[in-house]
Each structure stands twice: as C-alpha cells, then as structure tokens.
C-alpha cells in the first residue's frame, strides 16, 4: 500500500516531503542529485579512497555550520551539507587537485 502511494507520480514527485507517507517505504531522497551525491561518497569510502570517519567529521561540521544561526532553519539542506562535506574530503585528499588547481 505504501508502495502504491510512492509510485503515484503526483506524490513521488512532489516538492518537499509534505504528504509523503512516513511508513517504511518513505522516500529518502528528494532529487536525483541527492542520490548521486550519496552514492559518490559511499562508493569512494567503500573503495578506501578515504575513511568513512573522515567524511563523517566533515559532514558533522557542515551540518553544524548550516544550523549555526537558526537550528530549525538551516541555511542549506541535509544533502547540500553532504555535498559540501564530500567536496571538503576530496580537497583534503587532493583527489581533484590537478583539475582544480
């Protein structure tokens, strides 16, 4: 039943999570780029390109930064912070260095 609701495009493609079911089949990504950003970080960590904990520390930092002024109204969403954290880890490891220099 939950699945039926999620496959209805008017619900699944809604902006925000307003009326999405809170049951176990809930969407966990709001947009495709969130899914890709998630996959990039996990994939690189699984391959040992960086330690998961290194990413996590950056994520904690990025989330705290977004919530510093008003914890209930962060300046950016969760996966935006995730992306900031990923970019920070990549910079730290100089994994993109020769491209961005």
């Amino acid at each position: 039943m939950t699945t039926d609701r999620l496959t209805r495009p008017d619900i699944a493609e809604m902006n925000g999570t307003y009326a999405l079911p809170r049951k176990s089949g809930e969407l966990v990504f709001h947009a495709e780029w969130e899914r890709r950003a998630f996959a990039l970080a996990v994939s690189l960590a699984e391959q040992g390109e960086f330690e998961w904990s290194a990413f996590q520390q950056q994520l904690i930092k990025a989330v705290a930064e977004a919530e510093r002024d008003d914890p209930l109204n962060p300046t950016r969403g969760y996966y935006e912070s995730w992306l900031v954290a990923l970019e920070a880890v990549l910079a730290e490891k100089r994994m993109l260095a020769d491209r961005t220099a």
Partner: protein
Amino acid sequence: MSEHDHDHGHDHPHNAPPNPYHNSERSEARNAELTERVAKLEALLTEKGLVDQGALDKLVDIYENDLGPMNGAKVVARAWTDPAFKQRLLENATAAIAELGFGGLQGEHMVVVENTPDVHNVVVCTLCSCYPWPVLGLPPTWYKDAAYRSRVVIDPRGVLADFGTEIDDEVEMRVWDSSAEIRYLVLPERPAGTEGMSEDQLAELVERDAMIGVTKVRAP
C-alpha cells in the same frame, strides 16, 4: 529559501499524518545548480577512474532496496521468538545481528535498547544522521531534519505525539543519541494478540519507525 511557508491547512488524503519534520523546500533554480555541481563532480571522478557509473547505480540500488528496514524487522522478530537470541542481542547487538548476516559500513557498533511496559526508547543523531544502515536502510528524510534532531531531546513525548504515538506519563522516556561510534536500534514491544504468529509473519509487522522508536508495533 528556508522561510518557505507551508500550507498548514493542507488536507491530507492519505492515512499517514503529514510528516511533522520535513525539509524546507528548495527552489527549482537551486536544485538545477546542485544537479550540475554533482554532475561535474561525478564526471571528474569518473574521468579519474575513481568511480564507475554502473557501480554507482548498483550501490544506490543496494542501499535503497536491499539494505532496508526488513533486515531490522527480522532481527526484532527473531528476538521476539527466540529468548536466547534476544539475550545475545541485548548483550552484544553487533555480534547477534551478524548472526543473521547483517553488518558493514555504518553499522558496526550496534546497541539494541528494549522497550518494556515501563520504558520507551527513541533514537536520534543530534550531530548529523548516524543511523544503522545495514538493518534500517537509509534514514528517512525527517530523521535528518534539524527539527527532529533538536526537539526529540527536549520534548520526546511531544515529538512522539506528532507521530501519533501516545506514551503514558508513568512510562520513562529514554532518548539515545547515536554517534559515529554507536548506533542504536530499538527493540519494540511485541504487541498482544500475536502469540500464534510465525517469525516471518511477525517481521512483516515491524516497521522502520518502531525501530527508531517514534511509533509502536501494532497487532494486525
């Protein structure tokens, strides 16, 4: 962008109440910007041979579909039907969960906390979104929201009420803050009227939210 005003008079056609902890909406332009930023990053990493398109798709599929709350539900159902397993689960959750074949990135240090008639447990990660992926899949959107993360610590009863869960005043509420080191999983109470059910049937009843502790498991 965060001051977006939601229509609180919105009539919900579904049986689930509206999610009380949702992200603020993002503008189309911002979304397009982020889409491009991630695409560029992905292209760069692909070019360097650090990631592979097919592998990424497969990974997302695994995390979205295979590592789901069903794994956690199996753990709970086993604990309800096998007292010796339950004992091991409460003593060393990581090892007991590994017996069922679940473990891996983000799920290493597990602690299971048991709900009883006197104690109700609820899990949060106040710093970010630490979550036991191998047993619960990916965290729901509300779990990552600042509103849930900050409020559940201050007013757990109120937050649970938002989820439609009433906890009696006599019941002690315990809030567990997950961290990079420890991931908590709630062992919900087995509902009355399920005595004749098999382990598989019981697993069907256990929803993700009950294992986070924001709801209870209900008999069918």
